[in-house]
């Protein structure tokens, strides 16, 4: 008579399967939940001023680079100074209480504490100017900002997200004058548009000598 009951013969197998299932679940969980696709996308902090991109960029059709004026000159797409807002709002809605902070900022030169939505990690040296100048639209990374009331994080910003485009720039490139036109399409017919992207994308990549930079030094220094 053994001191171990018979079911214990199954114990190693049960443990093994259990471990595999647990391990699999943990792996799958980390795989899904610990990626920027889950952690970043949809992040929509409340901003100190209820500024609507939908109204300004979408309905009024103000060009992105009117406010983000340095986007084609430097690595960062600047948040405009309050004095930029006052270019219009000294006349439009000039006593609106929602704009009190902006007026104060423009008068006293105190910063408005906007909450940062899109962040690249410190070890990534992303440069806005070069992307914008070479036909990569804002929409590629930021989504349809012109349809957002409150800006939210639309794309995951993971390394594979960057690499997808870097591996195949032809699929994303567009004429440089359409970069800030977020709703722009080659054609209203999606099939035709896709075809035109393929043809023109390849042409742009060839003519502009667009490099498919995949070396570490392209982004990390």
């Amino acid at each position, binding site marked *: 008579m053994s001191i171990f009951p018979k079911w214990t013969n199954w114990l190693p197998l049960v443990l093994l399967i259990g471990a595999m299932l647990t391990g699999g679940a943990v792996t799958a969980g980390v795989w899904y939940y610990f990626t920027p696709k889950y952690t970043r996308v949809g992040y929509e902090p409340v901003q100190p001023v209820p500024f609507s991109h939908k109204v300004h960029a979408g309905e009024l059709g103000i060009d992105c680079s009117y406010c983000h004026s340095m986007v084609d000159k430097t690595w960062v797409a*600047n948040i405009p100074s309050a004095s930029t807002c006052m270019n219009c709002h000294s006349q439009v809605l000039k006593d609106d209480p929602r704009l009190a902070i902006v007026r104060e900022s423009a008068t006293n030169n105190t910063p408005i504490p906007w909450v940062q939505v899109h962040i690249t990690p410190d070890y990534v*040296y992303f440069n806005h100017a070069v992307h914008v100048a070479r036909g990569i639209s804002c929409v590629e990374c930021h989504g349809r900002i012109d349809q957002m009331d409150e800006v939210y994080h639309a794309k995951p910003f993971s390394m594979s997200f960057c690499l997808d485009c870097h591996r195949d720039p032809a699929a994303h490139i567009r004429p*440089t004058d359409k970069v800030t036109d977020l709703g722009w399409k080659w054609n209203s017919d999606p099939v035709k548009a896709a075809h035109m992207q393929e043809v023109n994308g390849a042409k742009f990549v060839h003519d502009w000598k667009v490099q498919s930079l995949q070396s570490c030094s392209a982004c990390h220094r």
Partner: protein
Amino acid sequence: MNSTPTTPTNANGRRYWRSLDELADTPEFKEWLHREFPQGASELDGQNRRHFLKIMAASFAFAGVATLGAGCRRPEEKLEPFGQQPQPDYIYGKPEYYATAMPTRTGAIPLVVKSYDGRPIKIEGNSLFPGSNGGTDRYAQASILNLYDPDRAKRFAKDGKTVSREEALKFLDDLSQKFSANQGEGLAFLAESSTSPSRARLQKIIAQKFSQSKWFTYDAIDSGIHQRAATQAFGQPVKPIFNFDKAKVILSLDCDFLGTEDDAHNHIRKFAQGRKAGEGMSRLYSVESLFTLTGANADHRLRVAASEIFQIAKEIGFAIGSRVNAELAHSVWPRDNDVTPAAVRGKTGAKWISECAKDLVAAGKNALVVAGQRQPLEVHLLAHAINSALGAIGNTVTLISAEENSSADLELLNHTNVETLVVLGSNPTYNLDGFPKGLGDGNTPKPNTVIQFGYYEDETSVISDFFFPAAHYLESWGDATTSDGTLVPIQPLIQPLFGGLTELEFLARVAGESQTNPYEIVQATFGGSEESWKKFLFNGFNSDGKASLANASLLGQTRNIAIELAKASREKTVPVSKDHLEVIFFRDAKVDDGRYANNGWMQELPDPVTKITWDNAVLVSRKTARELGVQNGDIVEISLNGKSVKGPIWTQPGMADYSLGLALGYGRERAGRVGTGVGFNAYKIFSGKYIETGAAIKKTGETYVIATTQSHWSMEGRPAVREANLEEFSKNPDFAQEMHDKEPPVVKSLYPNPFDEAKKTALHQWGLVVDLNSCVGCNTCVVACQSENNIPIVGKDQVSRGREMHWLRIDRYYTSDPKRQNNRSLFDPNADMNQTDAEQQFAEWIDDVQAVSQPMLCQMCEAAPCENVCPVNATSHDEEGLNVMTYNRCIGTRYCSNNCPYKVRRFNYFDYSKRPASALKGPFYPTPLLNKTDGKWDLLSWFKAPEASGMREEDEWDLIKMVKNPDVTVRMRGVMEKCTYCVQRIQQAEIAQKVKAGASGNIRLKESEGTIPKTACQQACPAGAIVFGDISDSDSTVSKWKSQPRNYSVLGELLTKPRTTYLARVRNPNPAMPDYHAPYSMEEYENRGGEFHAAEKGNS
């Protein structure tokens, strides 16, 4: 109950929280959480304590839930834009460049400073400046760290207590009024020399207003002797400019013009220009006692005691005189028989002198004789006399009119009744022995008030009654005159960080001027129109304001004065011997006179010759060490003229026997957290004479650890540095390529290098060449690299473990006559190659050595051994040929470093950037487990307070991080790093070109368009010895250099295919000289390998 919020449940019964949200969602609770201190928190009484604890528990849980609910989000960050745009053309994130200048004691270095969002981060030379190649010196490169030094003076102080700025300025006004009443009776200034016209103007105003006041110009290390000697020799106020580029034969009389003399970067540039490998390159003779950079770069070097240099100069002068005009020679160069340092010279020495003289005469007006600033006046006068006899004045020596800083005789400071002493910038308590005691030698009382104007609260601040913080030159308006007499502006890049005053404002206030704004003072001095003023500021120099060339001829009696002076000093001189040692005090290549003592970059910079970091040492020759029975690290007591100082011994190859070399500037007592207590203070036995005889040494029995970055001195016959004589080079220009070690035959690789495929897609192929013929080993590139690439300092303890972080190091090898080494069969291929470091210091071969310097940085191997062994692909190749390092991938296995044949990879053993300054100087412990600090176990104190053990304080870190280059990652503990060819500059250049190209294909950087970036080392190099560029462009300079026959790869036989290559060095010795031979390194190589059978080398 007005403090804690209530829960929404019934207050009487037991309270249950159904959910945390139920509690946490109440507005009161939220508000309470948000407020830092709940209202009436101090009134919380016992009745509510339980409740309070519950709430606290809930709030902690709440925080936890909040974290989970929000996912693993990064902490919320704010973007705070300007309320009003600062300038219309301001672009955030784009660096701006401003022209300014760094004032030195006898000149100024024109600079262009990079400012990133209002904070200066990198200093470069102003390449627009006439003659400049954009090079700087190591002091200029390192000076930016002083701006952000947390230990710099931050306050106005009275008797050591902080006072307000207003109070301090009022004190100055009162002072001014008080002394204007009595014409400055009892007022004295102790100021450092300066080339600022504005200061000179203020000095004159002060002299007029306070006619009874005294102005003393005092420099701890005096570089003004060149000007004084020329003024005396030529009988008018002139300053010599030495044109090393025009000189064909140069004789240096103990003049370290490439190393520690003022204005060395200009000398290096000109010297390199005159020494392009090939026919017509200059020849350098050096007579010296210390082994200096100049001696290391000399073709012939005579090792004599510094006190005997005058005798040598005289004999050379005699030999020259007898060739030029025999009669003249005997009358003006009388050979006196009193002192014959035969031991030094002997038969070879005599021949050395006569052949050197012959060569100088043959060069005629293209010869140049320079005397060192530590040599006394008579040597300088003789040098001028020789130059004049050779006809060199006006050609290799040009004279410009220049006024000296006027000064009362410093001796008077001890005998004048000084009531108020104003100390401007200098630190006399530290470097003027006897100060301030000498100020009251019984007859005269000590000054009532000492007012100090200084950058640090230093040793002098202890005795000063009033302290004024000085602004850094990057915070100041000012002006200065460069060594060639050009007026340059000093423009501020930033507001004074701690409210410091500029020297001009300080003096203007003392003078009681109404105009105290330094900007206005400088503009008033400049005069000129608004347009020319703007141009002056924009260019960074005034091209019209150049000093005029002086047309002067040597006064007839100069030689006699020199000889009389020498006779007088000779009487006091004892011939050097074991018991009458000679002491040479010299300006340190790193801390200068002590002013850079608190600069960590400078402290950690290896000395160009000794490679010692974080210390100075008593430098002695092998023979002297043997006879005195001392060895490296023995602490000895040196006594001289009744004073003594203790320091550790360091055997210096090539040093003259019976000379002690003492670097000034160390042993600071109040330098700051970095510099205090580093080294020993040689000023204690210094009396203003840089060469003294009659010192004695006593062993104390103590020993000391010296941290050097290169403990092994020899190349062991390996051809890392390749050299040939000019004669051999002319016959066999390919010598460098024939010198490599036996190379395995190249067979087709089993494994194709993926880079061969990748590089087809690239626009550029980067490469770098170092011309060893131009490089003098000055170390400027090392500091420039440190500044550009955020390289941390690690401290003495870590350096002694070989953990220094410099991406670019300069290897200095000593080579010597293999015949002397053969006795020890060192170069027998079968013998044990390794001579231990302890053995080296007593090996006879080190007596008469040659030295070679080689900048060693990442070789960017096309077949990089480091890449193959990285388990995580953290180091890899990009298509443009860079071996790149991805810090965020690195897990710190250090395999790559082990596999690197060049040893250029650096590992962050600690979080060096954030380690506190207190960790820099030690402790030396075998292991942290077994060490005690202040009687407590280190491990225990770490366990008790881990956070206190090793991070900089936040406010200190806030200041230090301002110097960091935002384009380069600040590396943390556990990652490997190495030279990147300044990948950030490459990327920025490529991006700028692509932005410009827009929708076009013009994205290639071209040298012809000036779009190729410069690496930091290249930009800083005063010699122009480094060239970086695109090797796929056959017209680029780098391609042209690489196609020269002198081009070779280090360890190329390993088939690593380095992108960094070197141009071999060519020496130009005189075949008639007794010590003519092939470069020792080549002799060593042949002796070891026996493979290299080049053409005749003309060996005698």
